[in-house]
């Protein structure tokens, strides 16, 4: 190719670079500066990791996100294997049903959890019929967990399904014909073959869960996930330095997990929505 063909090429990139620098890099730089410019200086990072309020929030969010990721991966593995391997009438409707909620914002998911497990929800009605008391789970950690699984399933399922479709069925058949049990085939053939997809989609699921704000906001439960803690520090506590510190810690965690997953799995990990 002649170099002349390439001449104004960098101009094509310039607008995006300007936007990214002005509205992402510079603000992020300011955020870092603010995080260490409070009365305590860079000690805010020490407080963020030792003060029981912040530490508990971080640990709760980590546990919730890890539990969500593992549960969603297990669900997506079963459902994804089934939908990718079987053809039957109504299959594409089921796939659409399972992927439509991809675009629901967290607040809407929170509201849907209230529909299921709130004071007037489905489980409350069911409880009234069965033992005369309203069963509610929406406003506890269970409600958060259910909501997080709700918005994670569409994200993970698509990746798992397309990985299953690319999988070599012969390997499984060979393993089975040599007498391997179902469990052995699952552990020794299927999961290793799907590992890159599971790691990639699991990392996206984890990162999305760590940063999810809307669901916790809508459920207004007493559980302070990290984004809620940041929000409260910023708006109610007016503690901008601590809000900035926690934001940076949270951003570092999600970014590093995505980076790590990409280097391990080699697959593309870009979170959606």
């Amino acid at each position, binding site marked *: 190719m002649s170099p002349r063909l390439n001449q104004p090429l960098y101009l*094509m990139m310039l607008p995006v670079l300007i936007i990214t620098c002005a509205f992402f890099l510079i603000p992020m730089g*300011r955020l870092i500066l603010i995080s260490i410019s409070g009365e305590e200086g860079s000690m805010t990072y020490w407080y963020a990791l030792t003060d029981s309020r912040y530490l508990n929030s971080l640990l709760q969010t980590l546990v919730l996100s890890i539990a969500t990721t593992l549960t969603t991966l297990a669900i997506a593995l079963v459902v994804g294997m089934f939908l990718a391997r079987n053809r039957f009438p109504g299959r594409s409707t089921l796939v659409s049903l399972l992927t439509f909620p991809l675009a629901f914002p967290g607040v809407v998911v929170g509201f849907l959890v209230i529909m299921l497990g709130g004071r007037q929800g489905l489980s409350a009605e069911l409880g009234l019929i069965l033992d005369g008391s309203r069963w509610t789970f929406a406003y506890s950690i269970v409600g958060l967990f259910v909501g997080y699984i709700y918005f994670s399933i569409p994200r993970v399922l698509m990746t798992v399904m397309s990985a299953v479709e690319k999988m070599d069925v012969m390997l499984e058949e060979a393993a089975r014909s040599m007498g391997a049990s179902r469990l052995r085939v699952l552990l020794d053939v299927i999961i290793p073959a799907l590992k890159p997809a599971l790691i990639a989609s699991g990392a996206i699921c984890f990162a999305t869960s760590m940063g999810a*704000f809307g669901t916790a906001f809508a459920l207004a439960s007493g559980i302070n996930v990290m984004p809620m803690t940041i929000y409260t520090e910023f708006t109610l506590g007016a503690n901008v330095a601590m809000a900035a510190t926690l934001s940076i810690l949270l951003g570092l965690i999600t970014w590093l997990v995505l980076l790590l997953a990409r280097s391990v799995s080699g697959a593309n990990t*870009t979170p959606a929505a």
Partner: protein
Amino acid sequence: MKRSLSSYLQLAFTLLICAFMLVPVLMSVAAGLTNNYFQGLSSGLTLRWVEEVLALYSDTIWLTLQLALATLLINLIVGVPAAYYLASSNSRWARVFEELIVLPVAIPGLAIALALIIAYGGVHGLRTSWLFILIGHVLYTLPFMVRAVLAVLHSINFRTLEEGAASLGAGFFRRFIDVVVPNCKGGIISGALMTLTLSVGEFNLTWMLHTPLTKTLPVGLADAYASMRLEISSAYTLIFLVMLLPLMIGVQWSGSRLRKPHA
């Protein structure tokens, strides 16, 4: 073909998960159209709540549409050329830029919103303007537009096409508009639908960036959930779903179209 017990179990589990995804949505739709949800559907169906929502919150619907279209316009103008650059350039910088563009998606929206408020919240007039939310939406959706176009560019041999056009005397911008853009139409459509869908449903950034005068639909939803009766919240959710549905169908349609091998 005879199906085994385990495949019936898998089917049952799949249906259970589908019900988990669908039932609360149907309950919400029903609640939005019922006179009194606590008495049940026997209290009669009504559009009263939908009308009430439209009276209370129609400005949020318009702002959401305005934001989505403006975000799309910016993404088209800056995102498509950027994807072309990333596909054409072999330089090390191109890889760095690609990472840089995707970074805002890897970091929680709340953190980015906080950074934007700290950096530009004091700029006169910007904090209260809808443009402040627009900045957030562009940062967050741009990677999806660039990725969608980039994927198509990687799958077609656009250089040969371009060199052909160049040998016929077409200049750089002529080649970009007449050769490159039409050939990655599929990716542009897919990226555009993704942009609209994400912008319409964006909450994490928007909640931090909004002001009482710049409320989007998801922000209005959060308000309604906290302060309105269940029927109104549900009717509002219904309106949101009606807006989202054609976009989601479009995303699925364009995705399946792209996955098919090119003829």
